[in-house]
């Protein structure tokens, strides 16, 4: 399967701490994207990193991509209650995009 795999499946941290989640995939990609899904809602695109990029920032989000290890990480700094959601990586192979199963992030007050 080309599906990316997020790790961990679930993560609980205190508000204000940083949250890190990882995505591994199996074959070469064009780019990798991260999406967020609040409970019972649709997915929202967060950030895209291309295969020739190693790191990208957007506000409190930092994404890294290591194509040699076929892995990516999403770091959310200074977490807030509103960051409680599921986070999905999506690997873009050019002819299709495949979503992983997601990491459930819970921010504790």
């Amino acid at each position: 399967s080309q599906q990316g795999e997020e790790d961990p499946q679930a993560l609980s941290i205190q508000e204000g701490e940083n949250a890190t989640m990882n995505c591994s995939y199996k074959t070469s990609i064009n780019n990798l994207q991260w999406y967020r899904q609040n409970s019972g809602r649709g997915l929202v695109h967060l950030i895209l990193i291309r295969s020739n990029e190693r790191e990208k920032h957007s506000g409190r989000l930092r994404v890294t991509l290591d194509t040699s290890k076929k892995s990516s990480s999403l770091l959310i700094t200074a977490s807030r209650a509103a960051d409680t959601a599921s986070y999905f990586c999506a690997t873009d192979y050019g002819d299709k995009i495949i979503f992983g199963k997601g990491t459930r992030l819970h921010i504790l007050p």
Partner: protein
Amino acid sequence: DVKVTQSSRYLVKRTGEKVFLECVQDMDHENMFWYRQDPGLGLRLIYFSYDVKMKEKGDIPEGYSVSREKKERFSLILESASTNQTSMYLCASSFMDREADTQYFGPGTRLTVL
């Protein structure tokens, strides 16, 4: 802002009924997709379309069909609903861009088949 709307947030149908799920996008996107999302399985692609009247099977098309008569509208049809089609259905759209297929999602329809 891109807006993708789905006809219902919640839907309850009986086994054997024909079910229509409608999706409309307002950004003139060429691509439209239907996914189902189930716990532990993530998002699975049912059908997608790159143009009007065009459709392609995704990973799990069995038991579903689609219709795209207008660019902005993509319908998912369950010809004879079954209990194993109880799920969250997500519609998405994107521009025809081979460099990056960023998808915009609707709010989802939670379908229960009794």
